[in-house]
């Protein structure tokens, strides 16, 4: 089969690989119909996630058709059209049995701090992902969800991560009626978090970014007020001023690991890979939230140096919630999409690339060319 293959930082290509095999009785093999490049795929592409191995196929946002099922699979059959949440979960461990499906303890030998995620480095279990013609889907009875007939592929693929993660970020912020919510970062997750904040009763939603085309999307798609941090002297002062000096009730940090806002960040993070995520945004979030408010770390921090800072802040009581995204919200998000509560894909600007041109898609997304907000990958017929 043809599959995207990581060749080292900033380098990917399409190679012939073996079609994945059933390795566990509850595995399924899914023929990929549509995949997406996630902002967090860029963390891998830029070489920022520890233990990202050459030869890995990326892609944790994908949908497809069940091609083969293992002997213990009960809920899926060949031919089913499914969306596959980005988390891999056994459904029965200590964490899964308490609803914490993104923290499954039975799927990731490489770390106990995180569960399994498709193609998100060996730190998240060492699975291949869906930017390929076929993908192995472990625990087929737990993760995949049938795609309703009325839902198109583009909406479905966004539900596997971006929409659900954005919604879940807003939910973890414990937003209440009348709250002022600030979202740092206007990528897909930030935009969906901002949009979702209104559902939970926010009275004001403010999105902070530096890319004007993304701020425009925040205004038109997420109905948010916007702050271009490149055009203000001090973001925190700006946020305090717009909230009468109080600060926001909820701040959601949706800034990715490759934050690149200043020279020191650029050198130590984007180039030397000594940190992932933005300490600048982290401090904006901590200082921009009102005393006693909720700050949510939803952006990509890398589990090394910066985690210490997060832990330190948490010990000081500044971090009530720092949790990764989860697949829990996927099904509910699908239902909300049907009810018109969640946005439909056509309202975004998505670049579609065939699998053969995936290197172009990565560069366009990474370099933020052509006002790109999301890249979809079509495996096609080859």
């Amino acid at each position: 089969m043809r599959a995207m293959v990581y060749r080292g930082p900033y380098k990917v290509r399409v190679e012939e690989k073996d079609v994945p095999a059933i390795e566990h009785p509850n595995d399924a093999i899914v023929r990929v119909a549509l995949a997406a490049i996630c902002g967090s795929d860029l963390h891998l592409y830029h070489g920022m996630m520890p233990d990202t191995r050459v030869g890995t196929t990326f892609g944790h946002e994908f949908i497809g058709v069940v091609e083969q099922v293992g002997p213990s699979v009960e809920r899926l059959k060949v031919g089913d059209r499914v969306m596959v949440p980005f988390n891999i979960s056994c459904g029965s461990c200590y964490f899964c049995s308490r609803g914490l499906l993104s923290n499954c303890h039975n799927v990731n030998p490489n770390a106990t701090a995180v569960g399994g995620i498709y193609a998100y480095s060996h730190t998240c279990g060492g699975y291949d992902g869906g930017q390929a013609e076929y993908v192995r889907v472990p625990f087929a009875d737990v993760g995949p969800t049938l795609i309703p007939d009325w839902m198109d592929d583009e909406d479905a693929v966004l539900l596997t991560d971006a929409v659900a993660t954005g919604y879940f970020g807003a939910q973890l912020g414990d937003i209440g009626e009348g709250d002022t919510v600030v979202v740092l970062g206007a990528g897909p997750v930030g935009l969906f978090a901002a949009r979702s904040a209104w559902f939970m009763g926010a009275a004001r939603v403010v999105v902070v970014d530096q890319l004007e085309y993304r701020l425009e999307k925040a205004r038109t798609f997420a109905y948010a007020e916007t702050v271009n941090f490149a055009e203000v002297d001090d973001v925190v002062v700006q946020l305090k001023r717009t909230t009468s000096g109080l600060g926001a009730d909820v701040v959601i940090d949706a800034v990715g690991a490759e934050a690149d806002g200043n020279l020191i960040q650029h050198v130590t993070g984007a180039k030397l890979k000594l940190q992932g995520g933005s300490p600048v945004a982290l401090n904006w979030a901590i200082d921009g939230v009102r005393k006693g408010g909720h700050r949510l770390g939803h952006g990509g921090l890398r589990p090394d140096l910066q985690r210490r800072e997060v832990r330190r802040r948490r010990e000081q009581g500044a971090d009530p919630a720092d949790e990764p995204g989860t697949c829990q919200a996927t099904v509910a998000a699908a239902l909300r999409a049907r009810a018109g509560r969640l946005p439909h894909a056509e309202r975004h600007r998505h670049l579609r690339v065939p699998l053969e041109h995936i290197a172009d898609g990565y560069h366009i997304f990474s370099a933020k060319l052509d006002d790109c907000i999301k890249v979809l990958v079509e495996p096609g017929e080859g």
Partner: protein
Amino acid sequence: MSEQIPVYTAAAPPVPSPAELRARIPGWGVDLDPADRPAYPRERPEETGAHWQLPERQPETSPRERSVEHEMLPPVFGTTAPLHGLSGAVRRLSYRRCSEARAAHWLLLIAADRVDAVESHLRSLATARPDNPVTETGVRTELTQGGLAARRDSSRSDPRHRWSDPFIVAGPWVLGGAAAVLGLRRLVRGRRR
């Protein structure tokens, strides 16, 4: 000065009313009740589809590295890109020696990633399909997708420090090459004497 200064008195900053928001924002307040939100309350049992207490174990066809924090190899794991070469040795060391709380664990893995990239690049030179820095980086899209305009006509701040890239990217190679040349020259001169 008003007697009702927000924050310095009990007054809250002014915000739009629910009626105003409901009229302006599609779907405003539909999930106002936390109980209507997915995954509420947190840490509650739910039906997951699992029909086992402990999943069957996936066969371990070759030795699989694991975190020292794991009591056993978890039942299911990924099998792509197994450990190999010098990068594999560094990764193995990291997994065997360091818990996830130690920065050394993560920094060793990051270092191994760089070694892996160099190893793979060198290996590719011995194949019929060596790495192609033009097609594999997608850099041609800078010309076709408005690379210049994206930076020139934008408020983005990253182009301001792009001047440093050649030094950061090429610097280690230049310094390494210079060190190798100097070392080689010293070796040759030493032998001549």
